């Protein structure tokens, strides 16, 4: 048992739903209790889909348990087929149905359903959402794809994008653009908008572009084995990575690595003098492994940041994240416990966080600017406007997104420098996008909440500010320190004072501490 409040990933059947919802002409019959239908709203609300997900739930109840839940499954499956007439069906169990052991796959096999029925085994008590999507797509490809003649012209499949994916919709367009510039055609995009019939044509492509290893690596490997299709290993997020990707695809397909850089603005933006203050910004990275790996390189090589910590929540990729952390000489954080992430962020005291929805809120709490680079994300990260992460336009989007909260950070800094001026009092806040801005005053207004969270272990009284007296001069000086390092300065000074056996902190103590920690 493990106590959890936030989960980075849902259960594996949600991963299966993401594949089903991405596709057309496929239906998912899910053996699950009434109540598990909550997952529909992720698609209709967060992604704003205008259709119900193609999922039919058996919604068995308590009184059905002793009786015939298997019978309910068969009736549901038949009715779903009759109503929706899909080209193929996937069947599986959610966590509860896994316990009652009805075997949806075996049951469906005994029925006369005239289309392929693909059973899914998703171990709910061991694995999570990303495993669910990868496994589901793999099973679909395994049952439907066959070796076949290559298309006469050079084509590839684009695999991995699915429903509820962070910017998948626009990344597809960007990748298509890159391929188009090299004269490479697209055979099938899957699962996004693909039909089961499209899946049967996968074998005709010359290679596969694997967009998101989390969701389609198993399928890519399978296709390599049975159809002899190589697949790309580079993820085209960031300028350098996109160049590498183009080179890799050109080599796999035997074409010229032609590219149109006329729309790429990121390198000049980053070079321009306005960006000088970005140099050495301390950033902390957390998210899914693919986006963290890409973001780390962009942060260091294309933005000039210093990466002070990184990690991912999907253990499947722990090894590659550890390697990356070694390359950056920082500790790797592999965890799905947000409290550990929060702790690591506090310890690293970054000036900026690049993370998920969760880190956005951690950032809010700690007063650190944050930009979102990875799922899980909320409704605002399924924007109406074109916002890819991949390719040239993706690089432009990333530059704007990342510096946006920092501009505000700078503004916040100016606010505290001029805090004595009447228009710049602490409550003023940044002039734009209040919702994303750190609000130092919020902590003062709701101290109970912040304390409750930040201090689960109230021992260590020697560093608590209740025993330490800050003399007013020192307190004043502390407030002049930029807000994003103020907390650290306060902690360091108090620790220094405690080590010296001091009860009071004067202006001198503050500066002595500063000198002590400045190595």
């Amino acid at each position, binding site marked *: 048992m493990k106590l959890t409040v936030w989960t980075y990933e849902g259960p594996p059947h949600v991963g299966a739903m993401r594949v089903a919802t991405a596709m057309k002409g496929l239906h998912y019959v899910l053996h699950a209790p009434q*109540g598990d239908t909550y997952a529909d709203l992720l698609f209709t609300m967060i992604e704003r889909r205008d259709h119900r997900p193609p999922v039919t739930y058996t919604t068995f109840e308590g009184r059905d348990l002793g009786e015939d839940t298997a019978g309910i499954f068969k009736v549901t499956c038949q009715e779903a087929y009759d109503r929706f007439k899909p080209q193929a069906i996937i069947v599986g169990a959610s966590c509860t149905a896994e316990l009652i052991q009805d075997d949806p796959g075996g049951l469906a096999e005994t029925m006369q359903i005239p289309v392929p029925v693909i059973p899914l085994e998703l171990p709910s008590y061991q694995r999570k959402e990303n495993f669910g999507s990868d496994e589901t797509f793999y099973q679909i490809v395994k049952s439907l794809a066959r070796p076949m003649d290559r298309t006469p012209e050079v084509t590839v499949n684009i695999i991995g994008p699915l429903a509820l994916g962070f910017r998948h919709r626009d990344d597809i367009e960007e990748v298509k653009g890159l391929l188009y510039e090299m004269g490479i055609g697209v055979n099938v995009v899957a699962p996004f908008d693909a039909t089961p019939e499209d899946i049967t044509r996968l074998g005709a492509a010359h290679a596969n572009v694997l967009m998101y290893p989390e969701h389609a690596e198993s399928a890519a490997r399978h296709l390599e084995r049975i159809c002899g299709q190589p697949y790309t290993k580079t993820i085209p997020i960031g300028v350098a990575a996109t160049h590498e990707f183009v080179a890799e695809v050109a080599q796999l397909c035997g074409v010229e690595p032609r590219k149109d850089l006329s729309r790429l603005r990121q390198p000049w933006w980053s070079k321009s003098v306005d960006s000088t203050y970005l140099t050495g910004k301390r950033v902390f990275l957390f998210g899914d492994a693919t986006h963290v790996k890409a973001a780390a390189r962009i942060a260091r090589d294309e933005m000039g940041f210093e990466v002070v910590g990184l990690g991912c929540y999907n253990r499947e990729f722990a090894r590659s994240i550890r390697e990356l952390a070694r390359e950056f000489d920082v500790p790797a954080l592999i965890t799905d416990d947000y409290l550990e992430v929060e702790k690591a962020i506090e310890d690293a005291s970054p000036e900026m966080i690049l993370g998920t929805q969760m880190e956005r809120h951690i950032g809010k709490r700690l007063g650190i600017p944050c930009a979102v680079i990875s799922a899980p994300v909320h409704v605002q990260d399924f924007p109406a406007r074109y916002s890819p992460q991949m390719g040239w336009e993706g690089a432009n989007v990333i530059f704007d997104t990342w510096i946006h909260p920092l501009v505000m950070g700078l503004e916040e800094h100016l606010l505290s420098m001029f805090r004595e001026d009447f228009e710049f009092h602490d409550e003023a806040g940044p002039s734009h996008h209040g919702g994303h801005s750190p609000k130092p005053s919020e902590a003062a207004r709701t101290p109970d909440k912040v304390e409750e969270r930040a201090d689960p272990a109230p021992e260590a009284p020697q560093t608590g500010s209740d025993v330490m007296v800050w003399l007013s001069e020192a307190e004043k000086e502390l407030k002049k320190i930029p807000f994003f390092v103020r907390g650290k300065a306060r902690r360091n000074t108090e620790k220094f004072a405690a080590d010296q056996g001091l009860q009071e902190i004067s202006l001198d103590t503050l500066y002595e501490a500063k000198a002590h920690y400045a190595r």
Partner: protein
Amino acid sequence: MNTPKSIPSGTCRDTPVLKERGQREVFCGLTGIIWLHRKMQDAFFLVIGSRTCAHLLQSAAGVMIFAEPRFGTAILEETDLAGMADAHEELDREVERLLSRRPDIKQLFLVGSCPSEVIKLDLARAAERLTQVHAPHVRVLNYSGSGIETTFTQGEDACLTSMVPVLPTTDQKELMLVGALPDVVEDQAVSLLSQMGIGPIRVLPAPRTAETPGVGPNTVFACLQPFLGDTAAALTRRGAHHIQAPFPFGEEGTTLWLRAIADEFGVDDDTFDRVTAAPRARARKAIANASEHLNGKSVFFMPDSQLEIPLARFLTRECGMEAIEIGQPFIHKGLVGPDLDLMPAGPTISEGQDVDKQLDRVRAAQPDLTVCGLGLANPLEAEGLTTKWAIELVFTPVHFYEQAGDLAGLFSRPVRRRAVLKLEAAE
């Protein structure tokens, strides 16, 4: 069998109920935790369930999840499924850790889920054991919010029911208001009743464990919500007397609800009128303003919260709407009977759901407004229907006089929006 003479004929009470069985598109009772934990300020809700349950709470709570809420899920792992002894040990350990980290917690609910019910994890026994371990500081109770047993708001019913047996006994004549309402609304109710000289007034659930009400043969209670059937039955078993009335939605509902209690306490007409005249007039005016766009429009309720019958009564009688179908996850006639009595026969009253068949009926009827869950709202909007998502009706203050205008407003806003948007040119 039935006694037709005591039931006025021609109302929705004697309309035969369309009972359906099939796929249900509803939340499970775990969702109740989201508003219950806010109301009970020293309680923690620990779900014993799977990653699905944790994910549900996170999805349903939306941004609230980031406020360090007093709820969480102890996620069952492979090893817990293998041996029940281990599961109990693990649970004890997790509870120990939780309580030492949160010394402010006085009441802990172990909330059962589908997985914990299916493996027959005995949470009642665990609650007893843990109560002994952590007495007198913390009281540990247990109820099920599983989807196989409870639908959405029934989670609150199950929670309150679990508290009834441990309420202290009292012989006092007290009024108990049952149901977790936002504080602002609860205060209004208490104030109106107190002005009529009714008291002492207690509430279940109490905001803090120390304020837990007593119960006994002289207790009279009124429900604030229509989904509290089991709680009402449990209180009745402890000798309390249930005051039946329509639910306090809208001016009429609030007045009838107050009147029923006032009668029980022998309040005379003059006093009643003196206390209610001004807020009644305010409510009527606010409803008239907000319901302008609802007049003459039709409404279809998909099942969700059991609030559907009282809300349909409000919309048809006070906002001039016509109900086509009133779907409920579950109908407790003992509670919603008075509301059914007020509606003339006509609308289909349905219980349970076969969602695809019900959607076929929605499409055939083309209602002006469909009240439904978040999984259905956008898809129906995309088909050209106007929807009001129902979960908001549970979270927002909508009871009693001062909220009557807001309540009508919740329904009229989507209708008004449909009228103001000129998007055809863009589509």
